[in-house]
C-alpha cells in the first residue's frame, strides 16, 4: 500500500475514513462460491473508474468444489502485479482462514464469516479480525438456498462499503451480468448486494476511499488474458480454428466457438489434439491463417503436424497456455516450462516463431502479431501464454479496432506461374497462393512434408535438402532483423539486469522499481520474441555486471532455466545466470528481490 497505511481502527469510537491509493484484497473460499465473480465485478469497476487493476486466481483441478482464491489489486497509480501481500483477507471457511492468513500483511484486516470460522487467538493479536455472520445474513436477505448461493454478492456489498466504492456503478454491473436471465435472479443479487452494502459496520473497522484517478483520454477494457488473446486473433482476421478441450486453453476455444460465427467463421471441436492442428493447417492452406491451441500434453501431441507446417511452409498460430508439467502435471497451476518444446519440439531441424505476451493487453497485440508473422513468413507461430496470464484480469486502454482490424481474405487473382518453395529470394521467403487461384502455366503446386523442389515435388537431392533447410532457417533470420529491440526497464547500465519473458513482467518491473527506490542499480529486460531473438541483446547485457534470467521453470541439470539455456548458448556469456522455481505459483516481488540478491552476493 502506498501513501497511507491501511489499518483497522483499534481504538473504539467513531470510524474514520482514510484516503488510500491502492489496495490488495484476497477472497478465499471454495470454487463453487462464485468468488471469481466478486473479483470480476471489482476488476470491471476499477476499469470503469479509470483505475488500474490486476487479479490473480487459483482454482482447484477438481470438477466441483475445492479451495479457491481470487486476489484483486486495485490502484490509482500503475499496478504491475497482483501484490505480494493482501491488505484485506475475506475468508469464507476455516480452511480459507487458516490457509491464507499468511498472505495478509502485518496488522491487515481479516474479514471472516463467523458462521464458519473460529478465529485463532495468536492470530487475533497480529491481525485485525472482523467477524460478520455472512452466511446467515445472506439467508436473511434473500432466503435460504441449499448451496449457500448469494453470499459472494453479499460480500461484494461489504467490500463496497469498506472501500467506499461506487455502489451505483457496481449495481449497474450486476444488472449487466444477469441481463437476459430471469429478472428474479437480478433482484435477488441486488438484494444480497444491498444487504452487504448496508451492513452496519459501526466502529468495527475503518473505511477507506481511493484517491481520485487521473483522467485518461481513452477508455479502458477489462478482460483476462485468454479473452484478450482470442479477440486479438479475431482482430487479426482469423476466421477458422480447431481444438480439443484442455485446461487452461479451453476458455479460448469456447470463446472462439461462440464468437467466430458472428464474423462468418467457424471453430471446430475435434476428436483429438492431432486432428485439431491438422484441421487448422487445412484451413491455413485454404488461404487464411488457421488457429489451434492447447496446454500441457496437448502440445506434445501436436508436434508432428507442427513440423509439417514448418516443412510445408504453411502459416499457423498455435496457442500454448502453459501449465505445470510434465505429463498431466498441475493442470490449474502456472509454469513456464514449455519454452523448449515451443522453440524446438519435434524431430528434425524445424525453425518456427515463438512469441510470449508479457501481460493481458499484450495478449491482444501478440495474437495480432502472430497472425501477421505467420502470413508474411509462411511459418507456424507458437504463442506462449500461461495459466497466470490467461486467467488474470487486467484493465487496459481500449484498442483502436477500426484501424487495427484486418481483412485477410485470400486473393484469388490468377497468376502466370507459381513456385511455393522458390529459392529466388535470399530472404528465404517465397510467395504463397491459395487453392482456387488459377495458375496460367498449368503447373500447380504440391504442398508437402517430404523434402521438395521449388514446385513441391519430392526430391532426394542432397543439394536441395541443404538449400531448402537454409531457406527455412534464413527466413527466420530475416524476421529477426525486423524485430524491435526490447526496451531496458530502468537504466542502461548498472549492477543487475533481470531478464524475463511472459507473465513475470509485472512482478519483475515492480521489483526493479522497489530496489531502484532504495538506490540499487537494477534494470530489467523483457523478451517477447523468444524465437528468433531480436538482434543486439548482447549490447544490453554489456551494461551490467550480472544478468539474471528469472523464470518459472526448473534450473535443470546445469543450473539454467529454459530461456537462460538459450541465452547462454547464444551469447556464451558466463554472467548469464538462472533464477528458477517450480512451485506452480507466480513470482512475488519480494521473492525476486531476495533470490536475485542472494545470487549476486
Amino acid at each position, binding site marked *: 500500500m502506498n501513501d497511507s497505511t491501511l489499518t483497522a481502527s483499534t481504538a473504539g469510537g467513531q470510524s474514520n475514513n482514510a484516503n488510500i491509493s491502492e489496495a490488495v484484497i484476497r477472497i478465499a473460499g471454495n470454487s463453487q462460491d462464485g468468488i471469481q465473480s466478486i473479483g470480476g465485478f471489482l476488476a470491471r469497476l476499477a476499469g470503469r473508474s479509470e483505475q488500474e487493476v490486476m487479479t490473480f486466481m487459483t482454482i482447484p483441478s477438481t470438477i466441483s468444489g475445492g479451495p479457491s482464491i481470487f486476489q484483486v489489486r486495485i490502484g490509482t497509480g500503475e499496478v504491475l502485479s497482483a501484490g505480494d501481500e493482501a491488505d484485506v483477507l475475506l475468508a469464507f471457511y476455516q480452511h480459507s482462514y487458516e490457509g491464507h492468513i499468511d498472505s495478509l500483511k502485518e496488522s491487515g484486516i481479516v474479514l471472516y464469516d463467523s458462521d464458519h470460522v473460529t478465529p485463532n487467538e495468536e492470530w487475533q493479536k497480529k491481525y485485525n479480525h472482523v467477524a460478520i455472520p455472512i452466511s446467515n445474513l445472506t439467508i436473511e436477505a434473500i432466503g435460504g438456498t441449499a448451496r449457500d448461493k448469494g453470499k459472494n454478492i453479499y460480500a461484494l456489498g461489504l467490500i463496497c462499503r469498506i472501500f467506499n466504492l461506487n455502489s451505483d456503478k457496481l449495481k449497474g454491473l450486476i444488472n449487466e451480468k444477469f441481463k437476459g436471465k430471469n429478472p428474479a435472479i437480478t433482484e435477488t443479487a441486488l438484494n444480497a448486494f444491498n444487504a452487504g452494502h448496508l451492513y452496519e459496520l459501526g466502529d468495527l473497522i475503518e473505511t477507506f476511499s481511493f484517491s481520485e484517478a487521473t483522467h485518461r483520454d481513452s477508455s479502458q477494457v477489462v478482460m483476462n488474458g485468454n479473452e484478450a488473446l482470442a479477440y486479438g486473433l479475431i482482430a487479426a482476421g482469423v476466421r477458422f480454428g480447431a481444438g480439443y478441450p484442455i485446461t487452461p486453453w479451453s476458455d479460448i476455444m469456447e470463446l472462439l466457438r461462440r464468437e467466430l460465427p458472428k464474423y462468418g467463421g467457424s471453430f471446430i471441436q475435434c476428436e483429438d489434439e492431432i486432428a485439431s492442428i*491438422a484441421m487448422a493447417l487445412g484451413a491455413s492452406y485454404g488461404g487464411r491463417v488457421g488457429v489451434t491451441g492447447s496446454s500441457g500434453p496437448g502440445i506434445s501431441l501436436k508436434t508432428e503436424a507442427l513440423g509439417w507446417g514448418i516443412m510445408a511452409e504453411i502459416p499457423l498460430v498455435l496457442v500454448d497456455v502453459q501449465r505445470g508439467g510434465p505429463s498431466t502435471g498441475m493442470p490449474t497451476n502456472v509454469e513456464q516450462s514449455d519454452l523448449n518444446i515451443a522453440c524446438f519440439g519435434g524431430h528434425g531441424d524445424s525453425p518456427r516463431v515463438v512469441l510470449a505476451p508479457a501481460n493481458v493487453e499484450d495478449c491482444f497485440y501478440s495474437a495480432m502479431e502472430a497472425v501477421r508473422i505467420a502470413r508474411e513468413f509462411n511459418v507456424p507461430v507458437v504463442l506462449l501464454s500461461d495459466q497466470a496470464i490467461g486467467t488474470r484480469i487486467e484493465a487496459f486502454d481500449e484498442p483502436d479496432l477500426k484501424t487495427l482490424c484486418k481483412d485477410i481474405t485470400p486473393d484469388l487473382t490468377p497468376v502466370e506461374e507459381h513456385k511455393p518453395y522458390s529459392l529466388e529470394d535470399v530472404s528465404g521467403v517465397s510467395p504463397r497462393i491459395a487453392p482456387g487461384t488459377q495458375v496460367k502455366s498449368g503447373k*500447380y503446386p504440391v504442398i508437402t512434408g517430404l523434402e521438395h523442389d521449388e514446385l513441391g515435388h519430392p526430391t532426394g537431392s542432397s543439394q536441395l535438402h541443404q538449400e531448402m533447410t537454409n531457406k527455412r532457417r534464413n527466413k527466420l533470420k530475416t524476421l529477426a532483423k525486423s524485430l524491435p529491440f526490447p526496451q531496458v526497464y530502468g537504466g542502461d547500465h548498472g549492477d543487475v539486469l533481470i531478464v524475463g519473458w511472459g507473465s513475470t513482467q509485472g512482478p519483475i518491473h515492480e521489483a526493479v522499481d522497489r530496489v531502484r527506490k532504495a538506490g540499487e542499480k537494477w534494470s530489467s529486460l523483457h523478451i517477447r520474441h523468444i524465437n528468433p531473438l531480436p538482434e543486439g541483446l548482447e549490447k544490453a547485457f554489456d551494461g551490467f555486471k550480472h544478468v539474471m534470467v528469472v523464470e518459472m521453470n526448473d534450473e535443470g541439470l546445469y543450473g539454467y532455466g529454459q530461456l537462460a539455456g538459450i541465452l547462454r548458448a547464444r551469447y556464451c556469456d558466463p554472467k548469464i545466470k538462472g533464477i528458477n522455481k517450480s512451485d506452480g505459483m507466480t513470482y512475488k516481488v519480494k521473492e525476486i528481490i531476495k533470490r536475485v540478491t542472494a545470487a549476486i552476493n
Partner: protein
Amino acid sequence: MSASNTVDNDASNGVVAEQSLEDAEPSNRAPLTKKEISADHPTWCPGCGDFSILALYFRLIQQRGLHHEKITTVAGIGCSSRFPYFVQANGVHFIHGRALPFATGVALSRPDLHTFVFGGDGDAFSIGGNHLTHTARKNVNLTYVIMDNFVYGLTKKQTSPTSPIGFRSKTDVGGSKDKPINPMKQLVAAGATFIARTTATNPKHLLAMMDKAMDHDGFSVIECLSECVEFYPGAFDKATPRKGGAFKEIPEDHDVTSELEAYKLADDSFPGYFGIFYDVNEPTKNANEASLISSAREKVAGMQDWEILQKTFDRVK
C-alpha cells in the same frame, strides 16, 4: 435430413462468403486433357492397382469438366498417398493418418473447392482410425477413396489392419493373428452417409462409384481394393473374374437407406459385395456450420467486422 437442402453450402459459409469465387472460373474453358491433368510419372511398381485409380480419377475430372484450380487432392502417407504428386492440380501430401482432418479444414473453409482424399488401409484404419470415425459422424462434405491392399507396401510388407488372419508378413512370419477390420461395418457404425466398395480391376464400376460419391452431399467414402503386386500378389483374385474369381454386385433391391441391410451385406465373407452399401442424406458439417453462421450474423447484420468486435469491447468497459 432437410438442413443440407435448405442451406446453400457454397454461398453461406462465411469464411469465403464475402467474395464471389465463381468469378474466377471462366465458363468457356475446355475440359482438361489427360496430359494437362497428369503431373509426375507415378512411382508405383509396375502392375500396381493404384495406376487404375489414378487413371479413373483423371477420367472423373474430365467428364465432370473440373478445372485445375478447383481441385484439391489431399493424402496422408503410404504408397497410395503419393497420389497428389501425380495430379496436376492443388495437391497436399500431409502426415500419416491425418489427411481427413486436414481435408476437413480445407472443405469447411473453402466450400468452393472439390476436396478429394486418397490413402491406404494403414492411413484409414490404423493410425488414422479415429479420424475416419469422426469425419464420418461430422459428415464433412468431401470424398475419400481408401486404396486398400491389405498390406503395408511402402515399408515393405508388414501386417496391415485389413490383412486377413494367416497372412505372412515380416511382422507376422507365422501368419497374422489379429482380426482384420471390416471397412464396411466400421463405416456403417461410424455414421458415414455414403459408403461404397469397388475394385481397381473393374474400371467401369470404380468410375461409377467415384462419380456417385462426388454427387453425394456429405462424407462419401469408397473402399477400393487395389492389389500390391510386390508384397501381396493375388490378394484379390477371388474378386477378379479374369483370374477365376467373382465380382458380386450388390443386388438391385438392396435398401441403401438401411444401416441394418448394409451391415448384413458387409457380413458376407471375402470377396464380398461391391457397390453402394449405404447412401442417405443427412445434415452435413458444412451446412450445420453455415446455419450457425447465418443465425449469428442475423444479429450483426450490416456491421463491419471491426464494429462487431467493438460491440463486444463496449460490453467489457
